[in-house]
């Protein structure tokens, strides 16, 4: 353990993330999250000023549905990006898992069986990605572009222009049920998963190894970390979370089309990067992703209340992605110029 820590400290000085150079890691990371939290609060206030319908417990509870499913996947994606890989097939996994659940529901399988189907399809898809990346050692970005088209393609072959409906009544709980007052099942699941992922990434050996690989894969190999095995596990985990998200989304919508969750991979990557996870790998926190989920959820919900069309919202999401990455770089440049 202490070996790993020494190594990250040493490699970090050589790694390509100079905005975290020379200052205590925790302080700087903390400040990113504080900044993001400030943004979230500002958006919250702006929303409540802009629309009289915003400040209402049930309304806010509805707003959480905008991001809970995406955020579940974003936690796993954050770990994958920290380790230096990416999975662009997550939305396609949702489509395939949802199609499988739809087919199972037509055969009269009950709610527990449907959940099992959705989750296992997610796991199988994750295992396929993981095998291609960690066993055959292919670049994850092309592999997952390929499997994205494959998984959604299977969904299109199965459904064509049809849709599955007719889910059993008790299946609706996962997407529409409430655990307590305004707290939906999805929101509670989101919080529980956030805590679990936070602990796994920041307080276990496994999480530490993820950071080590992301910072310096060579050094990780030479210090005996099973790089390929960890990458495989992370792809499996991302598949699992996509399966769980598929259960929630299908249950919430109550129907399945092959175009379900189209374009989510982009929003999920945006959420992760907005949360302060370095796209180059090696740095990031789950807390950041949680706040980023709230920021994106609040922005889209607020714009929705103002009757802004969805595609215009996507301009904001795209700008948010580029600006949040560009801003620290520009600030660093200016600082560098002034010290010169």
């Amino acid at each position: 353990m202490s070996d790993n820590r020494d190594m990250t400290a040493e490699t970090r000085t050589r790694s390509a993330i100079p905005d975290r150079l020379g200052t205590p890691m925790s302080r700087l990371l903390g400040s990113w999250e504080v900044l993001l939290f400030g943004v979230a609060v500002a958006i919250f206030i702006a929303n409540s000023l802009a629309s009289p319908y915003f400040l209402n417990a049930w309304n806010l509870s509805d707003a959480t549905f905008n991001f809970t499913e995406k955020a579940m996947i974003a936690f796993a994606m954050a770990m994958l990006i920290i380790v230096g890989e990416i999975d662009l097939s997550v939305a396609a996994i949702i489509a395939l898992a949802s199609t499988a659940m739809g087919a199972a529901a037509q055969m009269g399988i009950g709610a527990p069986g449907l959940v099992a189907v959705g989750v296992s399809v997610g796991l199988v898809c994750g295992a396929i990605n993981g095998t291609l990346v960690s066993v055959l050692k292919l670049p994850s970005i092309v592999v997952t572009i390929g499997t994205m088209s494959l998984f959604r393609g299977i969904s299109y072959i199965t459904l064509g222009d049809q849709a599955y409906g007719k889910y059993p009544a008790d299946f609706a709980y996962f997407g529409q049920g409430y655990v307590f007052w305004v707290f939906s099942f999805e929101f509670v699941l989101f919080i529980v998963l956030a805590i679990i992922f936070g602990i796994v990434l920041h307080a276990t050996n496994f999480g530490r190894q993820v950071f080590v690989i992301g910072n310096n894969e060579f050094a990780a190999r030479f210090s005996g970390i099973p790089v390929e095995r960890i990458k495989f596990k992370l792809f499996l985990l991302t598949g699992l979370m996509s399966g769980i998200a598929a259960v929630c989304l299908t249950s919430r919508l109550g129907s399945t089309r092959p175009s379900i969750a189209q374009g989510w991979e982009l929003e999920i990557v945006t959420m992760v990067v907005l949360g302060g996870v370095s796209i180059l790998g090696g740095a990031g926190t789950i807390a950041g992703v949680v706040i980023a989920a709230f920021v994106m959820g609040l922005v889209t919900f607020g714009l929705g209340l103002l009757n802004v069309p969805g595609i215009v919202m996507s301009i904001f999401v795209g700008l948010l992605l580029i600006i949040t990455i560009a801003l620290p770089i520009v600030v660093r440049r200016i600082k560098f110029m002034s010290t010169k």
Partner: protein
Amino acid sequence: MKKLLKHRELLLVGIIAIMVAGFATRAPGFATPGNLANIFNDTSILIILALGQMTVILTKSIDLSVAANLAFTGMAVAMMDAAFPGLPLALLVILAVGIGAALGAINGVLVWWLRIPPIVVTLGTLTIYRGMAFVLSGGAWVNSHQMTPGFLNFPRLPVLGMPLLSWMAIAIVLMMWVVLTRTQFGRATYASGGNPTAAVYAGIDIGRTRFFAFTLSGALAGLAGYLWVSRYAVAYVDVAAGFELDTVAACVIGGISIAGGIGSVAGAVLGALFLGVIKNALPVIGISPFAQMAISGIVIVAAVVFNARAERKAGRIILRDRGAKEVSA
């Protein structure tokens, strides 16, 4: 290395020939020159876009915004033609190339000056450009009766037995071949993807090379925007949605290494034709068009596996392989 590349393009030609022959046994008339010319014409836009994508990939980057760029530029010129029917066609085509190049240059600047990873930049601009197409049009369609006949018929004009669209694709293939193999920029493109460190020592500005690659890809996307809108005689926001992945797929199938520095113009063209043949054959042999997505997915994965092997044999990444073996053992 060169021998390997030659080999692989011949292989691809062979595979495409076998595919065409195979489809011809199921559907007589598939392999007639007329139908093959049709397939080429159908694939022309993909070929043009794949060549732009290839230039970007050679520099170790990726451009996911090409289809959104195409949608925006196509919408812009279609609306201009509808609003001012008097504008000469040449001006509109130049405008399309110019708007496309400007959008590509935005990607390039973000990659060059701010050093943001290309995938993040183009994922962002992908949504922004398509969103802008919506803002520009207000979600409305530009239909064929609103556009002038000259604007619509240009790609269809027959010249020497082939539509002008095919000739434009051929001209761009030749142009890109000259640019990539006979100019300083072409050399810099291969160098900055093949070995960035050595390229810097050789005095090549990698950032600037990437900027020009993105601008070129944008300009070709802009041209493709006009061609797409005039060929299909309609412009709407979702034009060519998801087409960026087809361009990447064409490159990967054509043997362009996603890690940069490896690939040829012939490869990209053959990769695009491969997809074009499959796309045109499915309805002919009675497979649901819904199967096309899954098939291209399988082809992409298979091509990546194949490429990785070919590149490994060439003796690149020696150390990583050894490390990997030690770990898996």
